[in-house]
């Protein structure tokens, strides 16, 4: 019968994101206010990132503020913080979206009020923000994690993935690239037996690791592309008989993982520098607010000491390749 279906909506066509003209030579404005809205305040990862943003903003002579919910699943809370920033008439906001769709209405409202919106770490749909600062290309992350683990287990044996929530957009894209990488011939002796989800909760990740090891006694390695997951898995492994026998890699922070690298539980893992991510987000926001860029593909801008960045497809700006941490270099990092 009648009614509105997905097809009808698809036919409506996307609404055009309005964009003015970019002036690459425009002066960087001072005295702006940029609001950072992480997925969760008090989360060490986001705190490092936002600190990076604060540093850059101070350098640029603008004001930094941070607001955000205290729970990473409180999407409604995040939406109301977008509204709050809009009400407070900040010049730009940098948002790490808990949900790609949920923030859209509020973010569009903000853009309508002349506020520039940059997403970082976690994106929304492309028409709800001016630019997205990506921590690393998803492809790089996915593929390098497989490569890291493969080396540690001599390209042989069963492996598993311990991810965050099933809905975590980032993780899912990376996992897709991991699967793709595993199709290459050099990995023919490796088999991905399971993707488990620990919901970024220490206890659940812990028990999921236990479950993996019980279910697959021949498991050789685990990839955990989430800082909470890898830490919990490492803690479990280091206190169990599997320590050193089952390899673990993924995304972790050097401070979290130092102990496990030193006691032999973990050989190597990787991550980008969150402070750099925050810094780039801040510089992008200021560049947007100053009119140097508008978020269109192909525009370039200078991000202070970080060098020059070009805006890619869909307004994505990529931070660069992740750093690999191992026993040799880990002590040089502190975040």
């Amino acid at each position, binding site marked *: 019968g009648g009614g509105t279906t997905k097809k009808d909506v698809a036919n409506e066509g996307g609404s055009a994101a309005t964009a003015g003209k970019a002036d690459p030579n425009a002066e960087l404005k001072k005295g702006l206010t940029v609001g950072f809205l992480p997925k969760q305040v*008090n989360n*060490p990862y986001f705190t490092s990132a936002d600190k990076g943003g604060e540093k850059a903003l101070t350098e640029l002579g603008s004001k930094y503020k941070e607001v955000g919910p205290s729970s990473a699943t409180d999407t409604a809370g995040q939406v109301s913080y977008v509204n709050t920033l809009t009400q407070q008439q900040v010049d730009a906001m940098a948002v790490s979206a808990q949900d790609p769709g949920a923030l859209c209405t509020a973010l569009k409202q903000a853009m309508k009020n002349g506020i520039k919106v940059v997403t970082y770490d976690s994106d929304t749909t492309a028409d709800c923000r001016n630019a997205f600062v990506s921590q690393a290309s998803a492809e790089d992350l996915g593929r390098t994690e497989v490569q890291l683990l493969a080396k540690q287990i001599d390209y042989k044996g069963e492996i598993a993935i311990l991810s965050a929530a*099933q809905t975590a957009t980032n993780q899912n894209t990376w996992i897709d690239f991991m699967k793709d990488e595993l199709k290459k011939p050099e990995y023919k002796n490796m088999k991905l037996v399971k993707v488990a989800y620990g919901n970024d909760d220490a*206890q659940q990740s812990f028990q999921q690791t236990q479950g993996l090891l019980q279910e697959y006694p021949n498991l050789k390695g685990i990839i955990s592309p989430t800082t909470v997951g890898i830490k919990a898995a490492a803690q479990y492994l*280091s*206190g169990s008989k599997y320590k050193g026998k089952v390899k673990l890699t993924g995304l972790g922070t050097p401070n979290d993982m130092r102990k496990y690298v030193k006691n032999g539980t973990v050989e190597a893992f990787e991550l980008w520098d969150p402070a750099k991510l925050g810094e780039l987000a801040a510089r992008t926001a200021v560049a947007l607010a100053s009119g140097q860029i508008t978020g269109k593909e192909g525009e370039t801008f200078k991000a202070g000491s970080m060098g020059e960045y070009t805006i890619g497809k869909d307004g994505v700006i990529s931070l660069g390749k992740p750093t690999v941490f191992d026993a040799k270099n880990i002590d040089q990092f502190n975040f």
Partner: protein
Amino acid sequence: MTVVTPQEAPVADVPKSSGTRLVDRVFKMRELAILVVFLVMIGITQAGNSEFLSEQGIKDLLLNATILVLVATGQSLVVITRNVDLSVGSTLGISAFAAGTYLQGGGNPVVAIALAVLLGIGFGLLNGLLVSLGQVPALVVTLGTLYIIRGIDSIWVGSRQITAADLPGGFVDFGSGGISAVPYLALIALAVLVATAYYLKHFGSGRELYALGSNPEAARLAGIPVRKRILAAYTFCGALAGLAGAMYLARFGNVDSGTGNGYELTVVSAVVVGGVVFTGGSGSVYGAALGALLLTSINSVLPALGVSSVWVLAINGILLILAIAVDRIVALRVASALKKRNARHG
């Protein structure tokens, strides 16, 4: 599998009358029901995955249950008095961080544990004072202190975190070590559990907790110091939450401002599944401990059986309801048997 049969007091020399300890027997029947559910579940899992009950597997099972058993034991005491403490999760989180902060500087683990327990006692006292002196609904008050303690915790902790690297190695090893398959932490929890159960059964003030939960007005008329007892129950509950915080630190080696968030629902589930009735006056800590064991084991059983984690949550909920339903049916059976046996002229 240590938390099973309550010890009988050594009174075997006295012959028992026909209806001896009928009340106790009712409790035991209910505990038995949970135990059966638990054993069946473990049996099935072992059949499907022979690794499950390996030494490491048993150790994991026990370790997983330990912290919940502790908190559930404390919570049962409060629930028995017809109250509830929702703030246990927040207390656990803040005391774990306090202990961690102290240990970061290379402190003495024993002092750290004492510190966590003391902090727990402090919050327990706060709850107890509000509930018993204010004589206000425990649910509201402790929901309030849940928020207050959590807020204070996250303001204090900020984005800091304590990781295993910050802690003395011995402390963390203690958290995962044990005597063959029995972790040290589980032994501590067991000791606390048995002592609490013995106290509840054999000491006057323990029985008075049941009395005042069963009928507060009658308790007052019987001259029971109601406020003092409630205060004590909350303090004990807080102390165990604090102790659990220290154990959490040892076990996971990782604490931040989110530690313990949402734990209250898990604890309440364990207590309810364990047959401790929310209207007070009945239930046992052994039941609550079994409930905790059952709940945490579900989370180990499903991954071990290779059930996709997508299904875990749904199955978890359904099992929880099943456990309560089975318990209820057993309780009804027992009650009707009791009624027939005890009809005065029958």
